[in-house]
């Protein structure tokens, strides 16, 4: 695949990954040099680490320039390879950079527009916080592709059997660490199962931020069952030392177009639901945000199954 193809490909996915920001895409463990280092040192690092550009920072970690392999090649030709980086780097005012909050769309558009290989990411104070190459974008997408929506024939097999799509294991109800039957058509009562699950997780001493993620994902799924599936469904949770798997299933009408449903702001909720603060069209995007892996399996007329895997993330314990 040529580089142009990759960019075209990414453009098509701009909207789907619209919830990602530069902060999530960028590489954070960076190799940097200061203006005092020599170009020859940059050359050795680029060769050994197989990188094609090095950000140059001052003593406070602020970005002041960038040195690329092209620059090194020219420096060799010009016989200045033993000179200081500071004199030959691309200065800050000539560098296109990104900010941590920039959207996926902005990141891809920057690649399309400027055709450079890498873009530093700097915070409001000018401090270098990351670097983004095309490689990093692909890596971030692959990480996010943990969310899979299955539309084809496979869904029948999985919808009729209580098997985890993510792990292949059988979901045996009586082996679940937690089970709650959703049985209410009243939107006022939605969320009881999640509140109950949260208390159980608290008793098991899982880390608090982790419990919040599990609860937010489960709550959105539970509310969906009440709004869209006649209020009859099942929440099962399987606890492990470092992870919790949550399965929320119903036998309701199913989702016609999961891709559409995943779009932020898209909603099929009836008007009266909105009076209760629901129907913002954020349920599925919220689930995707909090879960480490998410699968939504749905067939019209047969119901919907949401499987979420939550792993205790670094910094949560």
């Amino acid at each position, binding site marked *: 695949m040529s580089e142009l193809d990759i960019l075209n490909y990414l453009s098509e996915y701009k909207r789907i990954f619209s919830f990602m920001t530069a902060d999530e895409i960028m590489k954070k463990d960076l190799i940097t040099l200061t203006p005092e280092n020599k170009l020859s040192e940059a050359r050795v690092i680029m060769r050994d680490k197989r990188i094609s550009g090095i950000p140059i920072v001052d003593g406070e970690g602020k970005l002041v320039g960038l040195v690329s392999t092209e620059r090194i090649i020219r420096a060799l030709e010009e016989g200045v390879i033993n000179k200081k980086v500071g004199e030959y780097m691309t200065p800050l005012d000539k560098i296109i950079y990104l900010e941590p909050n920039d959207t996926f769309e902005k990141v891809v558009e920057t690649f399309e527009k400027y055709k450079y290989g890498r873009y530093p990411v700097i915070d409001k104070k000018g401090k270098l916080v990351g670097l983004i190459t095309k490689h990093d974008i692909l890596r971030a997408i692959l990480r996010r592709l943990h969310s899979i929506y299955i539309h084809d024939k496979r869904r029948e097999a999985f919808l009729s059997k209580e098997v985890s799509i993510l792990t292949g294991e059988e979901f045996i109800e009586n082996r679940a660490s937690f089970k709650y039957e959703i049985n209410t058509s009243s939107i006022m009562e939605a969320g009881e199962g999640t509140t109950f699950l*949260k208390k159980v997780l608290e008793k098991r001493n899982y880390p608090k931020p982790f419990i919040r993620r599990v609860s937010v994902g489960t709550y959105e799924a539970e509310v969906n069952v009440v709004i869209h599936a006649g209020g009859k469904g099942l929440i099962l949770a399987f606890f492990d030392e470092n992870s919790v798997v949550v399965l929320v299933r119903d036998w309701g009408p199913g989702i016609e177009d999961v891709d559409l449903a995943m779009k932020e702001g898209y909603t099929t909720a009836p008007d009266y639901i909105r009076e209760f603060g629901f129907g913002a069209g954020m349920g599925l995007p919220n689930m995707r945000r909090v879960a480490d892996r998410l699968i939504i399996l749905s067939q019209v007329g047969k119901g919907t199954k949401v499987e979420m895997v939550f792993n205790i993330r670094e910094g949560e314990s």
Partner: protein
Amino acid sequence: MTLAEIRDILEAKVYACEELLDKEVKYGCASDMISDILAFATPGSVLLTGIVSPQIVKVGKILDLAGIVIVRGKEPLPETVDKAKEENIPLLKTRYFLFDACGKLYERGLRGV
């Protein structure tokens, strides 16, 4: 800022958990959309909202919010008050509109998440 200060600033009525008003509030957030709240509110925040159903307490519990203030003078439903007592989440009501309530708290130093 404590919840008691927030009560005073907003001239609010307390419906549940008066004994917890010395709780320190870290941030403020405001929305009438539950999914937005789930997406953006951080633990220890006070939530200003027009939602009066018990859902809002469940959301408060899920997110470990410090307290909930219902705006525009709306009365919380009796179920909502019961739920707030059950879940130990302070529940208040102010006559101010959402915008004004936020402004008053911001003016006194409370910041958003």
